């Protein structure tokens, strides 16, 4: 007997580094459906983003192996599609049996939990002729390579501290620990240990809601940042009367049609310039490496409030983009963040974060630094305030600014200078022309 109709398997693809499992949030197809190649078939949610997984080929869905709410791992088979026309479902039967489970073909009652068919090692797509990388393999002993694999990390990513960059088992463990502490996805452990809670129901009715992936990640990240970074928050304010009238005037011009300037976009642009002036604010502290990592790129993370929680998409290379470009990009990112359409990569690599709560009407607050970044700028709502100037009180539009920073790396005076520079740039944006 030969295999019948060609059957394609859809496996959960790699979604980004450190992402091993995701939750199925929607299933768009059913067994028997005819699908087109690249048609979205399921939606999954990682810790930070939602993604649609497309069909690998056109054909008929013969098997659907996941359902909404399942946690699935990278490489796990999601469904099978019978491709090619004319074959009947029966022909594909041997394949179904192969998957571990039906009828009299597998008369083994004791075989209850089928042996694991996949783990979280990177999936190699077939046909993938495997050749061992002999020659310049990573400098790590076999025992260290095996440990990395067991712990689910790529040995090539592990920084080696030994002579010639040799990676020891200790280096692997330290790397895993750093991922766990930064709340990264590869953490093999569950949520952190927490003190036991009292039984709240003794005081009244309660309801339990499961943590979403986003909430779980946020909790881990915030706790890590809070315990790792000695925080100081400094407050300042900027008079944006002039800036605001310029902004409004620009937005009324015909060429502004469809490309509005927003306060947040202007802030991002100014902060990007500030980071060029004060590179330490665009760095990370590497205590293990006994050094400061200065980044030559400026990527600004922007906190976005979504129905599912906080997401931080990243505007890349903000220093070399103009305000209108930034506004358009931010609009797109924020929209997709709310629609769960952000890709994980669009939320990585920020060097500094801006969080604008002005829309909600707050003034000053102390944001938590998004470690391994070293500073974050909180923005409140701009308000008309009576300011003494030119011999009288004048109504001025004042915006509250709150800068939290990692006091291990940044001194109070540095922060004052950074914040003042930013405030002055907001007050007199023309001064920017004088900077190089």
């Amino acid at each position: 007997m030969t295999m019948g109709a060609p059957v394609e398997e859809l496996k959960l693809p790699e979604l980004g580094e450190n992402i091993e499992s995701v939750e199925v949030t929607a299933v768009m197809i059913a067994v028997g459906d005819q699908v087109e190649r690249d048609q979205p078939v399921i939606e999954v949610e990682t810790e930070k983003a939602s993604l649609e997984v497309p069909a690998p080929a056109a054909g008929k869905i013969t098997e659907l192996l996941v359902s909404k709410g399942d946690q699935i791992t990278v490489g796990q088979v999601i469904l099978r599609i019978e491709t090619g026309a004319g074959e009947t479902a029966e022909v594909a039967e041997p394949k179904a049996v192969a998957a571990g489970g039906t009828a009299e073909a597998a008369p083994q009652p004791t075989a209850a939990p089928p042996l694991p068919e996949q783990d979280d090692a990177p999936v190699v797509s077939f046909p993938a002729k495997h050749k061992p990388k002999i020659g310049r393999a990573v400098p790590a002993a076999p025992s260290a390579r095996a440990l990395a694999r067991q712990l689910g990390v790529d040995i090539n990513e592990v920084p080696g501290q030994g002579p010639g960059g040799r990676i020891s088992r200790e280096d692997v463990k330290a790397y895993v620990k750093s991922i766990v502490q930064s709340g990264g996805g590869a953490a093999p452990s569950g949520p952190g240990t927490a003190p036991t809670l009292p039984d709240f129901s003794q005081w009244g009715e309660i309801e339990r809601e499961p943590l979403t992936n986003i909430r779980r990640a946020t909790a881990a990240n915030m706790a890590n940042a809070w315990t790792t970074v000695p925080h100081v928050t400094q407050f300042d304010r900027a008079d944006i009367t002039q800036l605001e009238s310029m902004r409004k005037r620009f937005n009324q011009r015909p060429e502004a049609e469809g490309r509005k300037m927003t306060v947040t976009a202007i802030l991002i642009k100014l902060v990007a310039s500030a980071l060029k002036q004060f590179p330490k604010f665009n760095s990370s502290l590497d205590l293990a490496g006994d050094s400061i990592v200065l980044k030559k790129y400026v990527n600004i993370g922007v906190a976005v409030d979504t129905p599912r929680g906080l997401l931080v998409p990243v505007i890349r290379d903000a220093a070399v983009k103009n305000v209108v470009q930034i506004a358009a990009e931010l609009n797109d990112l924020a929209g997709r963040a709310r629609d769960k359409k952000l890709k994980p990569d669009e939320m990585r690599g920020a060097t500094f974060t801006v969080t604008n709560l002005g829309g909600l009407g707050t003034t000053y607050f102390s944001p938590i630094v998004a470690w391994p970044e070293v500073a974050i700028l909180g923005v409140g709502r701009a308000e008309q305030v009576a300011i003494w100037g030119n011999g009288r009180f004048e109504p001025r539009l004042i915006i509250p600014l709150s800068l939290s920073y990692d006091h291990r790396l940044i001194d109070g005076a540095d922060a004052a200078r950074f914040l003042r520079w930013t405030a002055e740039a907001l007050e007199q944006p023309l001064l920017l022309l004088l900077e190089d």
Partner: protein
Amino acid sequence: MADSAKLVVIGAGPGGYAAAFLAADLDLDVVLVDPEENPGGVCLYRGCIPSKALLHVAKLIDEADHAADWGVAFGKPTIDVDRLRGFKDRVVSKLTGGLGQLTKQRKVRHIRGTARFTDANRLELDLVDGGTDTLDFEHAIVATGSHPTAIPGFPESERILDSTGGLDLAGVPKKLLVVGGGYIGLELGSVYAALGSKVTMVEMTDGLLPGVDRDLVRPLQKRLEKACEEILLSTKVVAIKEQKAGLKVTLEGDDLDKPDRTYDTVLVAVGRRPNSSDLGLENTAAVVDEQGFITVDERLRTAQPNVFAIGDVVGQPMLAHKASHEARVAVETIAGHKVAFEPACIPAVVFTDPEVAWCGLTETEAKERGIDVQVARFPWAASGRAMTLDRDDGVTKLIIDPETERILGVGLTGAGAGELIAEGVLAVEMAALASDLKLSIHPHPTLSETMMEAAEVFFGQSTHVYRPKRAKKAKTS
């Protein structure tokens, strides 16, 4: 109703039996399918082991002859081919018998026969005792090995042997032609030369052991030139005709004075082919490439997720130690462990005299791939131990990454190189630096010192070789 198993291993060579034994040790219910009475495969029955028994004797004959130079003359040896064959067969049966014992002790079910997939969960068995059976399985490991390549167009003749026939040692031909200058041809050719055959070796390419670093091959080639009647490079066999007087062989090559010669026996050793046909793999999703190798991923999984394949049948190098290492990866994967086949090197040994061994990156490969390396060579003429053996025809070399000084490869030619290379394997796997080898005290006087001294050569500081570093690159460690 069909018999069933959690895991079936097809083929009981060093890959297959290692897989079955480990599976049993991990408490998996395992069936081993192989036609022989005991496990062993080509390695034990028709390869590594019998050839090493014969090569040991060949070396003894050579040394006894050589001993005359040291003042001890034994005279011309008398060779009793039957007893020699008996020795070799005893070695084989003792080892395979031992494996049979281990199979029973581990309660591995051994079915004597051959297997063919009828679908992705069922095998049809062709039993040695006659009859057929079926076997259902959850997981399968294909470890069916390889067979010697035959040259099409050669006549059917009892006097044309492949490596299996050569190892059977039916007799010692007066005139033997060995076709193929790879390791099998050289090993078997050496055996017959020592036993008294006049051996001619024919190799199609312009050097023996194609692909191996030339400086490693040179000492071996020198010795073989003495041991053999002729070594013909860049030469092909174009025809063989069976005649009463022997096999009339027509050669084609650049510097041949006479293309037609007659030999008593022709031994063909021109490579091996994977045993992947006749397995019914087309009834599964497994993929076989144009060369007949089963395509697998780094966990030895075929495109049929519950079917794995290991050893010669998945690709080069076709070496027993590669197969048994792959066996562990496949079985542990099936048992749910997170593992992969990811060696930094796979050692290779040619058991001629002198032996040639290497691991990791070779100089040839570094050149081909444009990898910047520094090569440190220590000639055995500077080794005290080699002198005491009257065997200074050797070389130890290290292939070193100039940037990190890491040892990327090791090459050795000389007596006992096959044993010495193990240190090189450890060095490459552990990502040792040249200074690690240099600073590890090696016992004196041994051949292993050549590893340490080669590392010293890298730093321009070898005690027994004066080869200062050029000033620009002077290094200390």
